[in-house]
């Protein structure tokens, strides 16, 4: 797993609630059998004026100038600032792969959909939940300040503005340690293989129809 420790990154705002994973990476790109190749098609229908299909050279496609990710001031952004229920809908982890490949390492929102939230940790993408009022403030500041950067520090669980004001965020301790240490969670689980086998033996006695 990719390590996440501290990130000082340019912020790109996406001022919409309920951004679904169909919007993050449209279905025609899910036909790939690889984990890579999705970054060019991140937010495809919002980002480009033409219709996207797999295999295109995205550098040649016409961009929608009003879409925030396309604006010169947000080029190189690694922190996506957005609204509530980000990542709702389909379970496609391709959404996380697309964000990661584009260069987004952290998404800040008042809330996330559960499956997206879980998926994001698997690629070292940190989802940070902040209060709506704080998110509002970050939207105002980032739009008013060209080159607006935040420091996201996982060990201290803080987001710090250019003015030096820090906002704490909560994160599950296990997930935090996995990100900081880059642990492979399949490897971690397999350390408990004996307990899994013991569970199976017990369940085969209690409810054998469940393991058929």
């Amino acid at each position, binding site marked *: 797993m990719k390590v996440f420790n501290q990130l000082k990154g340019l912020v790109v705002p996406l001022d919409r609630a*309920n951004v679904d994973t169909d919007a993050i990476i449209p279905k025609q790109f899910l036909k790939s*059998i690889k984990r890579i190749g999705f970054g060019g098609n991140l937010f495809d*229908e919002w980002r480009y004026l033409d219709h996207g299909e797999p295999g295109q050279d995205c550098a040649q496609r016409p961009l929608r100038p009003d879409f925030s990710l396309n604006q010169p001031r947000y080029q190189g952004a690694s922190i996506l600032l957005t609204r509530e229920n980000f990542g709702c809908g389909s379970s496609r982890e391709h959404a996380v792969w697309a964000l990661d490949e584009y260069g987004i390492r952290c998404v800040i929102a008042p809330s996330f959909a*559960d499956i997206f939230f*879980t998926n994001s940790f698997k690629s070292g993408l940190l989802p940070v939940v902040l209060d709506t009022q704080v998110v509002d403030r970050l939207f105002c500041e980032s739009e008013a300040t060209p080159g607006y950067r935040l420091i996201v520090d996982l060990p201290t669980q803080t987001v710090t503005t250019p003015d030096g004001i820090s906002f704490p965020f909560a994160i599950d301790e296990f997930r935090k340690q996995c990100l900081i240490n880059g642990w492979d969670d399949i490897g971690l*689980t397999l350390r408990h*293989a004996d307990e*899994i086998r013991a569970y199976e033996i017990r369940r085969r006695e209690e409810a054998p*129809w*469940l393991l058929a």
Partner: protein
Amino acid sequence: MAGKTLYDKLWDAHVVRTDANGTVLLYIDRHLVHEVTSPQAFGGLQLAGRQPWRRDSMVAMPDHNTPTTPGFTSIDDPVSRLQVETLDDNAHRYDLRYFPIGDPRRGIVHVVGPEQGATLPGMTVVCGDSHTSTHGAFAALAFGIGTSEVEHVMATQCLIQKKSKAMEVRVEGEVGEGVSAKDIVLAIIGQIGAAGGTGYAIEFTGEAIRALSMEGRMTVCNMAIEAGARSGMIAVDEATIEYVRNRAFAPVGDLWPRAVAAWRELHSDSDALFDRVITLDATIIKPQVTWGTSPEMVAAVDQRIPDPALESDPIKRSGMERALQYMGLQPNMPIVDIQLDRVFIGSCTNGRIEDLRAAAAVIQGRTVAPSLKQALVVPGSGLVKRQAETEGLDRIFKKAGFEWREPGCSMCLAMNADQLLPSEHCAATSNRNFEGRQGPGGRTHLVSPAMAAAAAIAGHFVDVRTF
């Protein structure tokens, strides 16, 4: 101490170990696999030199990419074809239970799982697909996962989880004639919102839920995810047990009565406490139609499209304005004035035999409106299709001007050739009205099968109760 919720019981029975901080290793009984979210997981398994922990837990089939044209023999799109062939290869390599193209049992994984009895009460069921919540209709703990977790389940038979909160959604009273499971769940989403269930496992209870068939219960649980809840569930009763009896994977012999006795415990205790309780009155639920680009943007068929100007929350207001612009609709327009280009009946939400019967009952003796470009019926599985043909439903649909297709996910997510063109309006029995979901620029309105059928005849929405 308070009693246990159904969710508590399912959770507790599957805990392999609990860490100090409350992180649990949760055992997974059934793993459903399809072609879109599995190739990278199989690839990861191979790269690490691992084998599936328990291959008999896995049931695999292609559904998302598969053509639905009658008599198709191959997939034209080479990228889709490679993805399906990759699943063929992986199923063969690992000797999985597999329903390939050509198998009469193949269909949408969430229709086929219960149909085969691969979904049983008391199970944990996962799939790399958010609509895995469907299987909660059987008092199973069922939820969608991403591809990394698919690989995790393949390799370890477990997931690393934290327990969700528990929500009860109680639907009291009886629904009126012409109001279906789909209308109930759309009304629930309209009330609690698309993120209302985030962080919760929802148990659906109450007289209106108990009165539903297993097909109807699957429709309700299927859309728990559209309310933000990864899992929805319903307690076991006689309907559950009768549905499972004699299914291909169901327990037989001495195991059957033992299993049934265990299943009868799968309900929330009378003194169980939920973190949140929502109550709806079924008697006032009307047929529902979505007008926007989130399932929470829903109204009763006899209402008008809401006016964003009356919304006080600025984020919601801008969301409504953007949705109406995308949908090409005006505030205060009557829902029944929405003109349609296509109608889609099918999907893991409403592609079961009861759904096709409900639609056919409305269509019988009538003809699809000439203004419609296409009206499509896509059965949820090969067995649903065969049953419908036995009952003569296919003839009713075809005579009315519907196309009768092979099973698959089809126009619900438009990964195959079944798609909307930009700006086309579609009455769909599926689950998501997101921008571009049914094709780039396409405009989806979610409805019940009976409402979709009536809309196909009229060419615009109509109240099926008076149609």
